[in-house]
């Protein structure tokens, strides 16, 4: 195995996984920045997006219309949960709102279960990945042939574009300005005449849109959807957001990519010893095989969470963020 091809491929993988995490993490960070709420139901909004997509594609709705339905449905879900579960808790302690987001998640999951039952669809189904997202593209590069699945290609391109658009929106528009003001100090923003409820609603709209894109990409990649599919991604997105300093949007993007690379590294490094056997010195191979055996990669998620806990302790403000003084 060529050293260059292997790592160039891993780099591409990291970049596309990172783009997906960045999309999710930014959605979380938008809401957290303003409300100091860790919206755990964000993953379930992704799930809702995937199901709307799956049901409409299964019903032979043309792809553009299906995507429109997905966006509309998720935005509606986001607005509804903000109004029903989070707005009544504006003054409640942070933990209460966190718990309420778990309840929202349960309602969305069980609602999906119930709905698929009512319209006679299987709950756990294969995601009808659109044709344009199927297959892979081969790149002829300096290092050699690199393979990238179309889904990864799309996330790799769509992720940064959406995130740059978002940054422009936040930096350059009046609504973006009021969002930054509200995130800085909700009460002060209110006193300055900003309709904070409207700002919060927009934060949920944007968050849901990002969740919709991430949800469809995630479902296409996983190939299968089920009501609790949002749990792991939202945890990962949370880690990404923490890495970047919670509430900071550029931070969440960087955190997403850092996490993506970290995960790819944790899968690529164990077993590397087996891969380079014959081409490297036996001592190096034995060292790698002993300390980074292939089986270690199965503990990837555990390592990621240990890293999260260490990070929370050592640098609670993340890489870019500042410590939230209570």
């Amino acid at each position: 195995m060529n050293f260059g091809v292997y790592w160039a491929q891993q780099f591409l993988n990291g970049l596309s996984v990172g783009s997906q995490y960045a999309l999710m993490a930014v959605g979380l960070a938008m809401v957290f920045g303003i409300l100091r709420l860790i919206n755990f139901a964000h993953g379930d909004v992704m799930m809702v997006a995937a199901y709307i997509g799956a049901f409409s594609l299964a019903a032979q709705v043309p792809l553009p219309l299906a995507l429109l339905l997905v966006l509309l449905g998720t935005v509606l879900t986001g607005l509804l949960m903000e109004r029903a579960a989070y707005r009544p808790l504006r003054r409640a302690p942070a933990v209460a709102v966190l718990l309420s987001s778990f309840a929202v998640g349960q309602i969305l999951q069980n609602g999906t279960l119930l709905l698929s039952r009512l319209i006679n669809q299987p709950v756990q189904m294969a995601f009808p990945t659109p044709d344009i997202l199927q297959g892979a593209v081969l790149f002829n590069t300096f290092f050699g042939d690199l393979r990238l699945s179309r889904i990864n290609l799309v996330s790799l391109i769509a992720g940064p574009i959406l995130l740059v658009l978002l940054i422009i929106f936040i930096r350059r528009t009046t609504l973006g300005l009021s969002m930054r003001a509200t995130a800085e100090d909700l009460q002060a923003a209110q006193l300055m005449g900003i309709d904070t409820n409207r700002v919060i609603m927009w934060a949920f709209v944007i968050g849901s849109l990002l969740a919709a894109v991430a949800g469809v990409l995630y479902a296409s990649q996983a190939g299968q959807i089920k009501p609790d599919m949002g749990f792991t991604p939202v945890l990962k997105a949370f880690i990404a957001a923490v890495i970047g300093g919670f509430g900071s949007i550029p931070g969440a993007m960087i955190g997403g990519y850092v996490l993506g690379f970290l995960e790819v590294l944790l899968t690529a490094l164990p077993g590397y010893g087996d891969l380079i056997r014959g081409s490297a010195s036996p001592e190096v191979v034995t060292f790698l095989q002993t300390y980074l055996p292939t089986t270690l990669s199965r503990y990837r998620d555990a390592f990621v969470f240990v890293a999260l806990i260490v990070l929370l302790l050592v640098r609670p403000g993340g890489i870019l963020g500042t410590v939230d003084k209570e």
Partner: protein
Amino acid sequence: MNAQAITRTSPLATWVGVGIVAGVVVAIILLLEASGSAFWQGIFITLGMFIILAVSLNLASGFTGVFSLGHIGFMALGAYIAAILTLPVENKEELLNLPGWLATIHLDFTVGTFPLGFLTATLIAGLIASLLAVVVGAVLMRLSGHFVAVATLGFLVIVRVVLINADDFTRGARTFSNVTPYTDLWWVYGWAAVTLYTIWRIKFSAYGRAMFAQREDVAAARSVGIVIMRSRLFAFVVSAFFTAVAGSLWGHFITSFSPNAFYFDLTFRVITMLVVGGMGSVSGSVVGPVLITALAEALRRLEDYNQLYGISGISLALLFLIIIIFRPNGLMGSREFDVEWLGQRVLRALSFGRRREGEKPERFPAGE
């Protein structure tokens, strides 16, 4: 919000009250055993397990305000450790791939008909979980607010990943089976009584008051000399012990389980019970499980009947939302069911009480 002062002026009344409650529970157990209905016994065993879980979580989270979402991880460890210890040696060879020293251990010794081995295995499981809780807690209890919630959720994920991948000990994601069904109603409610008594005593001790104090105001608590870390860690460790005990009990009741059983659904169920009952109230953590178990069971039957799966999950989550929005302190807040009052009523009815009607009840101390 504060724990109300308990002024025990009449130990007799308290004991009578406790005796009545215990009597009712024993009567229910006897009735259930006489009925021979495995279904109802199962429901009450599960209820008892949930009571232990909810009270333990209350100690760690309700009393201290440091919300732990990782407790089910301790329960999983308790279930696996105790089950490995009580598994017959031939099953160990067949199902697991244990290191030599562990493969020959089979805690099945009895005293008369009393399975002391099971008790020992449960205690060992609880102790190992507490030791782990010392390490995990020493790290996590430094965090606060929602960060501790997510970090403890991380602990839950870590435990799950380890359980799934430590095939030699746990059979990985496959079902761990052939566990001896030791657990019966007496075991569960015996342990529930021990848990309730211990945590009740903690609540009204200096330790408990320190926990409540730092929950309300960390700075103020620190200024009166409370070591925040020690107070939180103590709660976390004791709580982990009883949570692991509940895990052992459940494992020896259900007899086969996999890591999937100990994940977020169960976590959310116990949190619902805790929040509905009231964070900070020991009796609330009995009321919550009773209410939610009854409701969940009724809804589950409805679901089975009309095949509309999801209804029960939605209803319980809605109930949870309604409680958290309209009654954030739960049904009981930090208040407790007054066993002494119950005892006094009974004593008075039996005319053992010396007071006449209209007299100031003696449970209020002079000067209040």
